[in-house]
């Protein structure tokens, strides 16, 4: 992968410190909302890929500098993987890819929502005119040999396993581990870290394996390795197996069987329940929230060996967080969901969508008050977390009341920094180990 600030930060996302780095990065992203916008128009993955965004931003700038003779605004184009295409963009390729412009949403805040002519049926404005003669050869240039190059493999596998999402999942696991009332054991932590990471890679790969034709039709997911034919389905499944088996084994025998069982269950839940359910029923959102809640649970069980109230509280926090995050994001993707056949609340039950988002914002407030009661944190925590909790609840209320893109975007952005900050505050207010304080029993 090209070295970029984000690649570095991805690697740094280890342990609970990762939360900080991730948070800072999100803040940096917030400063460029415009270019950031189009990346939000996406369905499956809830986390934005910063590298993709950077690449696209570069493309956008490059394109604006060229003067095209066309009727529509220049749009940044999703340049295919730098691995297969060593040649830099030439204009012709740019034209052809114009056939599938990214949602025009990306470029200006002032754009109207319905300008999403991203159904890509507009004829390419330039090709059909003057350079029709050269079209065939240019189109033929678009064809790529489906030959796997070994040096491309790491990058391809990273994208297949949604490495950045994995990094975030592992961060929440680490937070669970760190918050558990047990002395911090480095070997155990590292085993949990690696095991959970491998399990997440496996689950993400299978998810992509199942969704190829659907991913092709969504702007952000259309550059995935299986969609682009950079890797065969057989290899993807083999890779998933090669991650799942050692991952779960590491968790079961290196950490404890409970953590291993949770890891295996989560892989199953994500690949066999959530993924197909997305196209069947809106219940997928709740299942997906459970999938997000299990990693911190795993971190906790890894440290303490048991599932107690504190573990469930942490799981509950992640569970509730998913709703304002995803529901707000999905509000702007309704067209893609409808066309692609995804059953999401934002399309089928818009009132429910907003109600649930608000409900869970308030649940977060309640859970931060429960944290000290369950001996996870001190009583300072709900107090210092109150401002951010009130703020996200306020944005949740605005989304509920206004039901427009502006409020949904604000809520989504808020959720991106709210979670890491929330977890960080929890960590700083962690209940100290039993030193005769009357707080109650530990684990």
């Amino acid at each position, binding site marked *: 992968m090209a070295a970029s600030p984000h690649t570095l930060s991805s690697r740094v996302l280890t342990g609970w410190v990762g939360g900080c780095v991730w948070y800072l990065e999100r803040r940096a992203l917030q400063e460029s909302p415009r270019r950031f916008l189009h990346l939000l128009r996406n369905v499956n993955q809830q986390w934005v890929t910063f590298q993709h965004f950077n690449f696209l931003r570069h493309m956008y700038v490059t394109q604006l500098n060229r003067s095209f003779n066309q009727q529509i605004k220049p749009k940044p184009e999703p340049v295919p993987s730098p691995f297969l295409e060593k040649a830099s963009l030439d204009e012709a390729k740019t034209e*052809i*890819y114009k*056939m*599938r412009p990214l949602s025009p949403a990306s470029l200006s805040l002032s754009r*109207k*929502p*319905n*300008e999403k002519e991203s*159904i*890509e*049926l507009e004829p390419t404005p330039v090709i059909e005119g003057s350079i029709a003669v050269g079209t*065939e050869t240019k*189109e*033929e240039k*678009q*064809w*790529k*040999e*489906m*030959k796997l190059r070994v040096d491309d493999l790491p990058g391809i596998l990273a994208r297949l396993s949604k490495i950045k999402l994995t990094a975030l999942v592992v961060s929440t696991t680490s937070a669970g581990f760190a918050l558990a009332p047990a002395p911090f054991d480095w070997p155990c932590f590292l085993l949990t870290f690696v095991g959970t990471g491998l399990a997440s890679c496996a689950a993400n790969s299978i998810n992509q*394996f*199942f969704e*190829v*034709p659907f991913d*092709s*039709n969504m702007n952000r997911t*259309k550059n995935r390795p299986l*969609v*682009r*034919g950079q890797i*065969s*389905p*057989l290899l993807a*499944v083999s890779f998933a197996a090669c991650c799942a088996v050692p991952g779960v084994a590491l968790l079961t025998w290196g950490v404890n069987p409970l953590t291993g069982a949770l890891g295996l269950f989560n892989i199953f839940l994500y690949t066999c329940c959530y993924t*197909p359910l997305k*196209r*069947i029923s809106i219940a997928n959102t709740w299942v997906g929230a459970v999938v997000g809640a299990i990693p911190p649970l795993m971190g906790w069980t890894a440290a303490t060996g048991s599932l107690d109230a504190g573990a469930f509280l942490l799981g509950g926090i992640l569970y509730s967080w998913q709703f304002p995050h995803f529901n707000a994001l999905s509000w*702007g993707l*309704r*067209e893609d*969901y*409808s*066309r692609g*056949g995804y*059953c999401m609340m934002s*399309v*089928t039950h*818009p009132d429910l969508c907003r109600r649930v988002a608000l409900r869970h914002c308030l649940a977060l407030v309640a859970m931060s008050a429960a944290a000290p009661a369950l001996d996870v944190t001190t009583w300072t925590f709900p107090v210092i977390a109150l401002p951010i909790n009130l703020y996200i609840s306020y944005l949740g209320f605005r989304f509920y009341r206004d*039901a*427009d*893109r502006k409020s949904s975007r604000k809520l989504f952005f808020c959720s991106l920094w709210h979670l890491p900050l929330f977890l960080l505050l929890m960590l700083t207010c962690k209940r100290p180990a039993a030193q005769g304080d009357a707080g109650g029993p530990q684990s």
Partner: protein
Amino acid sequence: MAVSRFCPPRKSCHDWIGPPDKHSNLQPVHFYIPENESPLEQKLRELRQETQERNQQFWANQNLTFLKEKEEFIDSRLKAKGLELRAESGQKATLNAEEMADFYKEFLSKNFRKHMYCNRDWYKRNLAITFFMGKVALERIWNKLRLKQKKTSN
């Protein structure tokens, strides 16, 4: 479809994948047919070909229908509002996302059964293709080993 027009270089013995199709957004694959293609390899190739064609048909139709019905919806809503279809500047008049929400909901529920059928079909085919790919890979490894054995015995 663009696949038929494409001709891979003679030296190549791999499949080739093209740019996303205009209507279906799927990337067509031009399958390589080796000279000594085994029956299993042929079966796999034909399965992949057929799946590709079915997917292409489904998604091209789906996307075109979506566009068409979207246009019709916008037109009918604008007419109901008594608005012109084109504003003075010549730009096409459009509805905002909240107004379109009804259309999205209706379109999704109308096509639900079609998607159910397509999903089931796709899952079955995808798993079958992957399974056959595994079989073909094993067959090739087996053949290579047999060849090596023959060479060492000679």
